[in-house]
């Protein structure tokens, strides 16, 4: 059992967060098909959060009183892009409105404030060797976009979505990604793991970086395991604090439960037996 990040690599892919929550002004909210991109100005935050790290966000006003008298706790979001401006970094967050917290955040208007803590957790580590294969499913495209921005055109990006409505965010990628949709309304009528399958056939030496729903991540893990391909997976789990305080976000690994907010959200696929554990995804 590990409760202090025993499995965290010596050189952690972590940019430290300022201590405490801080206000961040909403600069813009963009519709991207079924998703939205929320832009926040974070002058007090570091300019270089690692792709795959995340921030805890809450609306500064009226954070509560939604469905089920929620939200109460802040919510975790990976930054999908960082734009450096004279006034400091501007952070992009890709939002999928699935409940009271994400709904409140998508309702924010420019000029309104967020409470923000981060960047938190461990991000993706630069590929040790070979080509980088970036795989994103649905809203999991968020940290993949941040990583693609960092790696540039040398990396190959594979994205899967339910339908063309959700695929809108693919237009944010600088180098055209390969697309798959469940209903064939955009790109290939396939699963993104089918695309990955083909890519690995051509280039077995690649390193895989993936984020998406548990079933997709499990398929990626299994595929990479059989191919002996190194993979870094960005997971999700329900979080209260985001900085290791509550022990609520644990996921089972070969070395026991680890706090995903502290020793993840990016984990080595080799550390995981399965992504389909109870509570996976929340």
């Amino acid at each position, binding site marked *: 059992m590990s409760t202090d*990040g025993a499995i965290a690599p010596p050189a952690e892919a972590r940019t430290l967060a300022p201590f*405490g929550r801080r206000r961040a002004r909403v600069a813009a909210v963009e519709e991207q098909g079924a998703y939205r991109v929320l832009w926040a100005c974070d002058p007090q935050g570091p300019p270089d959060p690692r792709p795959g790290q995340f921030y805890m966000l809450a609306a500064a006003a009226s954070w509560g009183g939604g469905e089920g008298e929620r939200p*109460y706790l802040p919510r975790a979001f990976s930054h999908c892009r960082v734009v450096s401006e004279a006034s400091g970094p501007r952070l992009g967050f890709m939002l999928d409105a699935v409940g009271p917290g994400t709904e409140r955040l998508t309702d924010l208007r420019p000029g309104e404030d967020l409470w923000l803590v981060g960047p938190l957790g461990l991000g993706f580590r630069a590929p040790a060797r070979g080509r980088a294969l970036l795989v994103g499913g649905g809203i999991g495209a968020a940290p993949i976009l941040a990583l693609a921005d960092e790696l540039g055109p040398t990396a190959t990006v594979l994205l899967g979505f339910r339908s063309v409505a959700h695929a809108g965010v693919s237009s944010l990628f600088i180098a055209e990604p390969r697309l798959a949709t469940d209903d064939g309304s955009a790109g290939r009528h396939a699963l993104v793991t089918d695309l990955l399958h083909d890519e690995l056939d051509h280039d077995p030496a690649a390193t895989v970086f993936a984020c998406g729903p548990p079933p997709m991540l499990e398929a990626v893990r299994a595929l990479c395991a059989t191919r002996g391909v190194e993979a870094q997976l960005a997971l999700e789990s329900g979080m209260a604090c*985001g*900085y290791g*305080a*509550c*022990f609520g976000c644990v996921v089972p690994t070969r070395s026991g439960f680890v706090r995903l907010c502290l020793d993840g959200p990016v984990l080595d696929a080799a550390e995981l037996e399965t992504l389909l554990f109870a*509570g996976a995804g*929340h």
Partner: protein
Amino acid sequence: MRTDNLPPSAGPIDLCGVELAGPILNASGTFDAIAARRAFGDAVLERFPFHAFVSKTVTLEPRAGNPPPRLWEAPAGLLNSIGLPNRGLEGFLRHDLPRLAELPAPLVVSVMGFDGNELERLVGTVGARPEVALIELNFSCPNVETGLEMGAEPAEAARAVAGVRALTDTPLLVKLSPSASDPPAVAAAAADAGADGIVLINTLRATALDPRTRRPWLGGGGGGLSGPAVRAVALGQVAGVAARVALPLIGMGGVASGAHAADLLAAGARAVAVGTESFRDPSAGYRIGDELAESLRRRSPPRPGASSE
């Protein structure tokens, strides 16, 4: 001792013979100072949010904790079923204690024993360590021998305290269970048995169901409710216990502002702990201490010559 790296306060307080620079503590299990240093670096030590630090509850044997999911968001609150994951006494002494001893505030170690024997070994060993200023006995668990909850039954609480009182000179704080018919009676029994202070409230027993399956959401089955939802219950229990026992009380439950802390002090608490609010704001304790000191300053009669706004 340096205090400019601790929350502002209206002055030091005495907690069972231990001087604290102020009245703000963390609630056990709601702030992992070692993890916080990994996330925020040593900034945590430069603006440490508490006047004393309380460890997560330590058990004799290591525990992995409950299977996920461990969290459920409740209206203005949080339901948790963490299951006391910890390295066990050995691991705590070897791995955690040295790191916690580096913190800029006195250390309170929370322990839980599932029977009298375990409790004796925990208190005896922890009480012998000079780094430990106070020991908190987490009684929110059933005694495996009697099946009765130590913190909910006066007789159980008395027996548990009496069994360890002689083992150490370190002050013993007893953390009650809020799910008791008569918390003041439990507190009084603990006091008579030799407790030096009372800590309340722990989380309220509660449950959540998966909206899709209507089966228990939490991996551990039931859970404990904390946060603003329990604030008024905590204030009531602190007032009730303060009316019955003279021991110093550490009050907690939904504290999210200096005003909430002031309420608990007015209700009879000597000190106040911040729990779930630290999840919303890692440095909540610092802000709350600041707000409290400010409000106390405003209330206290102006010093001669000083103006009073």
